[in-house]
């Protein structure tokens, strides 16, 4: 996919973006900057399956915020304030996402000039205050009782009802994007896979696609098949894992332990393909690392067996009346809200957003071959669970189809020693959480000067906070699990 870079005036950008988003099938991919002296906006067109990049030069470290008119820009603008010190003027809730109080006030990791315009004490964080009779505040985290990643949840409740929820992230910020721009691009893939390791295959694939996009490299057909195979197996494993979590959260132990065992079986399939249960080191720019040819018949049998074993478990899970009672109408996200926040992945499709990157953008065998898209309209916990179930079964059939049609030939092509100078590469992959974007810029010597990652969770975190409103406090964990968002993918 070729990306055109269109220069656009920063002031005109706002109107242009509003009218872009008003057209059906047009989406906002990512708003970021390269070195703090410009804003780049990635626009996706899912009717033509193209991407456009707008570049607006900035003369100072402030610009007027898009957020009052384009809700989904709010989180990206906050992150840009963190990383580049670019202040969005009139942003309704400007706070730091990633750099908390202990960081130096002048630090702007991706802007060589450092923080210029921010006032003293700008790192101080203030939760939204809810006042009134009977308001009860529950702070939860950042360290949780289960083995999960850190995030702070601040509930303001009226009795057992959640009135407002504020989510604070950034506790596992490791400076991944900055490190990626510093290191040799041939080694980036190892860091990329480790950045959000439950999506290792998706991250590695997006990275490979982005670099191949820059180098204008065609990947052998067999490698494309194996890459899609990896991505679908990862999806199967994670969807089973999320369903396990849903069952455990409502105390349905029989189902959660059965599904937990079947997740192990799907990780075994990953092991058969790549020699690693989490696809570490399998996908690389140019193709894949190893050819699992002699193990593919075993894999096909494993996929069939898994599908057969899953069906009765899922059936007795979702047919249970009390399960329905817990999940239906819990954590509802309306279609309008899903559109405004640009929801992606399972959460988006549960609220009638017909968007699956596998149907639009090239990566692996997609979009030539693709599974059916699952779609639901109610946007509650049950719809999100159902989407996972349908995708899971679809993916297993798709794995079977990929194995049937596995072409012969080489599994990789050699990559050039240097990348073209001043080029842009884009990789869009539908991971198990949704649309993952890797955007890579090279400098005058063909080295990577900026590596931007948009994890699917970035679109969805705020929607979780809003979905929790007017629900029972004791239903929040269920709601949270139904979104199943990544902390490390967001914090990077």
């Amino acid at each position, binding site marked *: 996919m070729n990306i055109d870079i269109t220069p656009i005036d920063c002031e005109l950008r706002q109107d242009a973006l509003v009218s872009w988003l008003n057209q059906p099938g047009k989406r906002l991919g990512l708003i970021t900057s390269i070195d703090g002296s410009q804003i780049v906006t990635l626009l996706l067109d899912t009717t033509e399956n193209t991407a456009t990049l707008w570049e607006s030069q900035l003369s100072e470290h402030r610009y007027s915020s898009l957020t009052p008119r384009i809700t989904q820009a709010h989180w990206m603008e906050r992150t840009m304030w963190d990383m580049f010190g670019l202040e969005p003027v009139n942003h309704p809730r400007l706070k730091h996402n990633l750099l908390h109080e202990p960081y130096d006030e002048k630090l702007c990791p991706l802007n060589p000039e450092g923080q210029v315009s921010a006032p003293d004490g700008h790192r101080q964080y203030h939760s939204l205050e809810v006042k009134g009779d009977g308001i*009860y505040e529950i702070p939860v985290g950042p360290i949780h009782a289960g083995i999960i990643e850190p995030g702070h949840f601040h509930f303001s409740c009226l009795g*057992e009802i959640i009135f407002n929820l504020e989510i604070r992230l950034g506790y596992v910020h490791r400076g991944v994007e900055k490190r990626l721009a510093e290191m040799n691009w041939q080694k980036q893939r190892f860091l990329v896979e480790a950045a959000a390791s439950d999506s290792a295959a998706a991250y590695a694939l997006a990275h490979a696609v982005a670099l191949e996009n820059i180098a204008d490299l065609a990947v052998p057909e067999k490698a494309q098949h194996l890459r899609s195979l990896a991505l679908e197996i990862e999806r199967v494993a994670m969807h089973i894992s999320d369903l396990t979590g849903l069952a455990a*959260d409502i105390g349905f132990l029989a189902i959660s*332990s059965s599904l937990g065992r079947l997740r192990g079986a799907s990780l075994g399939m990953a092991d058969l393909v790549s020699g690693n249960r989490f696809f570490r080191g399998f996908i690389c720019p140019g193709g894949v690392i190893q050819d699992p040819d002699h193990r593919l018949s075993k894999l096909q049998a494993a996929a069939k067996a898994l599908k057969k074993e899953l069906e009765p478990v899922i059936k007795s899970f979702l047919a249970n009346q009390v399960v329905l009672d817990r999940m239906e109408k819990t954590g509802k996200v309306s279609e309008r809200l899903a559109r405004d926040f640009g929801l992606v992945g399972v959460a988006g499709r549960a609220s009638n957003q017909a968007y699956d990157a596998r149907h639009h953008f090239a990566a692996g065998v997609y979009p030539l071959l693709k599974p059916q898209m699952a779609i639901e309209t109610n946007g509650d916990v049950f719809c999100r669970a159902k989407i996972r179930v349908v995708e899971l079964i679809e993916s297993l059939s798709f794995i079977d189809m990929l194995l049937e049609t596995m072409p012969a030939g080489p599994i990789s092509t050699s990559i050039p020693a240097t990348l073209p100078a001043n080029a842009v590469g884009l990789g869009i992959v539908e991971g198990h959480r949704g649309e993952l974007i890797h955007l890579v810029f090279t400098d005058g010597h063909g080295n990577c000067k900026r590596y931007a990652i948009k994890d699917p969770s970035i679109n969805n975190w705020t929607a979780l906070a809003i979905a929790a409103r007017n629900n029972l406090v004791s239903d929040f964990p269920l709601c949270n699990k139904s979104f199943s968002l990544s902390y490390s993918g967001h914090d990077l």
Partner: protein
Amino acid sequence: MTSLYHWIFFLLSVALLPVLVLGTIRKTKARLQNRIGPPLWQPFYDLVKLAHKGETLSLTMCGVFRLSSIVVFADILVLAWLTPWLCFKPWAPEANIFMLVYLFALARMFTLLGSLDSGSAFGAFSASREATLGLLVEPAVLLALVALGIFFGSSDLRVIFSLSSVSTFVSSAIWIAAGLAIFFSSLVELSRMPVDDPTTHLELTMIHEAMILEASGRNLALIEFAHALKMCILFGLASQCFLRAIPQFSTFNIYAQAGLNIAGLLGLAMFVGLLESLTVKLQWRKVPEFIAYILSLSLIASFTAIGIGAIK
């Protein structure tokens, strides 16, 4: 001499049965999930481990927090002595139905005070949940016992459980209804499924576990043991009711009765294990509905008892 044996058996039961019942529930759950599970005596090892650990106390606590677990423990011990949950109990003073129910309420009140004293956000909301549940479930337990009281014409549980009256079809029916009501309300009382999930790590969904979140070390061991003993008393009482529904039960010798007594207790524990593997935790709004079913069981038992009294 027999009374000495009774005391020995009773004290052994108080010390060992709570651990065994808890272990049985855990083992059943593990086996039903195809796991081997911890050894049957694991709860005992856990208590020993806790007793050797240091204790962390919040700076905002006053003495109520430590006092509460001691009061609860003492209160449950008294209940173990008074309540007829075992057939081989030593002599005890009159066990009035109303006194028993409010001794349970006393234990609840001190647990609530302790959790409020800890000053954590979880402690306060779980205390409010526990208070709500207590309010709802108290009439169910009380009415189940009152039904027995009406039928046997006494409010003293020693008389009710004395095995002196002749067993009839109606008495069996009342014993079963009362036993079911006591068993199901004990699930609420003890914060077990389907009302509360004792194995969850999710603080926001907890009731009992969130109340004792701030307890640690020996204090926690005391609370855990008191809770397990309370479980034994309530399950034991329910199994006693079920056993008395067997017409020939009063003709068995004391050893058979004691054996059935303990088997019934462990049987209920296994049933709880089964229940907790197969049921889904109810939504908080549906819990009153569940308690309403228990209350109707108690009401059926009471009305039957009153009706029979009127016919006599």
